[in-house]
């Protein structure tokens, strides 16, 4: 089963590497991984999509927690959450299909972000399943290039009780 894990890490040298290395060293599945700034200075949020049975996911969470740079790990799979992914998809087109492509784009509430006389680039945002659906529809037209951001996710707001407590430091 797929799990979406969100973790807060120190924005320090090599923190991203440590997470990625841990996945390969332990042989865990890694479907997507993203990293970016947060509202807190010096802390980055990583969103990881992984899969495995309960024992494996348990280990993934514990191994992530074990990394010194990890401040907090949330397995969002159990929570009510918002998940989004962004895809840029460039499709080749022949005469006559441009309207069809624009219709598809509208159905997926995408944006046309680039166009020339051979190809059109769509920006589609949404849950990963929606992106997959868009990709499937566009495939027969001939996808020239595609870039997917990987999943970013957050718990829904009402679940956040004491957001700052877990960020307290230990005196050494």
């Amino acid at each position, binding site marked *: 089963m797929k799990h979406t894990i969100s973790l807060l*890490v*120190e924005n320090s*040298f*090599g923190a991203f*590497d*440590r997470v990625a*290395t*841990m996945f390969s*060293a332990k042989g865990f599945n890694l479907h997507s991984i993203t990293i970016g700034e947060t509202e807190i200075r010096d802390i980055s949020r990583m969103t990881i999509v992984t899969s495995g049975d309960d*024992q494996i996911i*348990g*280990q993934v969470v*514990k*191994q992530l*927690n*074990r*990394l*010194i*740079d*990890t*401040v*907090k790990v949330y397995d969002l799979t159990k929570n009510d959450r918002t998940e989004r992914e962004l895809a840029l998809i460039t499709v080749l087109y022949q005469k006559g299909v441009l309207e069809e492509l624009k219709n598809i784009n509208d159905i997926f509430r995408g944006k046309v972000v680039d166009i020339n006389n051979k190809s059109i680039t769509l920006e589609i945002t949404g849950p990963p399943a929606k992106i997959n659906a868009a990709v499937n529809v566009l495939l027969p037209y001939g996808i020239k290039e595609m870039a997917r951001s990987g999943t970013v996710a957050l718990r829904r707001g009402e679940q956040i009780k004491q957001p700052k407590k877990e*960020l*307290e*430091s*230990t*005196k*050494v």
Partner: protein
Amino acid sequence: MAKSKKLTGADIFFESLKRENVEIVFGYPGGATLKIYEKLYDIDFLKHILVRHEQGATHMAEGYAKATGKVGVVLVTSGPGATNTVTGIADAYMDSVPIVVFTGQVPTHLIGNDAFQEADIIGITRPITKHSFLVRDVNELAPTIRKAFYIAASGRPGPVVVDLPKDMINSECDYEFSETIFIRGYKPNYNGHLNQIRKAAKIIAGAKKPLLYVGGGVIMSDSAPELTAFAREYNLPVTMTLLGLGAIPGTDKLSMGMLGMHGTYWSNQAVNNCDVLVSLGARFDDRVTGKVETFAAKAYKIHVDIDPTAIDKNVLVDLPIVGDVKKVLEELKSAMPAAPQIDDWWEKINAWKEECPLEYDMSDGRLRAQYILERLSDLTEGNALIVSDVGQHQMLIAQYYKFNNPRSLLNSGGLGTMGFSLPAAIGASFGVKDKQIISISGDGGFQMNMQELITAVANKVPVKFIVINNSFLGMVRQWQELFHAEKYSFTDLGSSNPDFVKIGEALGIPSWSTDKIDEVDTLLEKVLDINDGPSLLEFKVVKEEMVFPMVPSGGSISDMILERLNPKRMV
């Protein structure tokens, strides 16, 4: 707070070591660390041991750390100096040994340029360190060193690498030492969950066939007295892992010896038949469990460990308790509602003991390692500090030496690093003054870090180096005989082995060799009396000897091999 003054990175380095109460550093100088060595020339609060190869330095630091419980410190230069430490770091990671390895690095502006003696040691060691730091600002040096020592020694201990670019060591800054350093993401949990502990106590009290399975965590948390007291109070059988030996005296009637691949027959039978298995500071390693599906299959499993990742990693347990074994044992003892009634269980265990004791045959008059180790155990009354290498002799030490005290068997358990014993014994000798220190290696492992004999001589360390020479890579030979069609592929060292006595003598080490049973005691007594420097003793033993019992890799207890399948193979 100290008054601020201009300090170089090297000054800050030594001031930090002083604040960590470091008394000894194992190192080797080089281009990137010259400034540190320049300062070291006038430093008198710590001793620097010049090794002959950086791998030796890491094993010495491990030996020192394992024997004393303090953090071992290594100081090496960049590039090859750093990469030579890798095996020792991996070894420390597997056996949870607190060491801090300072590596020189090329100046910051040259990093990534394939500069002379550059290696990405942080990248190389990432999966084999508890944590690592690259110092990129000299103002961060002191807090980094503080964190490195704290991380190495706390929680489940482990190795930490601190990479020091040359410009960080050389540059100056106004620096004030702060007494308080903060870490955000690292909070080891020492106190076990009280309700879990109470539940465990109830289950142990109600057990008919309980067994304590004790690992290295008990040794390194200094919980051996608590463990022994707990076991004695409730008359509980104790089986130990390789790293757990010494947790309870080997001569105690509650001691079952080691379990696992080369564990005692009765230990493994007890694991197979127990109804409650209490794992204390052990990690269900594959050399202990064999086939996981059949390991203690009938038992309710309680697992106490300070590292949450150890829980449910190899074997799913019924009751996990994350915490410091020492604290958990104290709580457990006071929570026990009653003593379990286990007289029948002891009867069974004793029957297994009689059914299949540890034994060996020396009726052909030829010398065996088992005999040497038995004699050594008697002559030192189980009180020596034994530093073992890896292979057959290691398993035989675990079987035949009766360890009286914790921290008295040092060896490479997880990684199985040949060449560990010789330097680790040297390292231990700087921290331990009240025990005889005996390094025991096979002829293969002895040659892997033989260069450190020079370090032993230079520092007149009173280590007794024993080589058990069977002219073979004995354990590999054993597997070749049992599982690889008797193809003794590249394990015969006999024709090319050096004359170990001459090697010792070339370095000025008093050295002896024998293959005679009746000379064993005399020669052992001789080296045990030499306390002003190293000594060397080679025993030439039967090359075809094997270690039994043996549970084949990945096998169940029922697959245990108790004796040579075909005795005729013995030449």
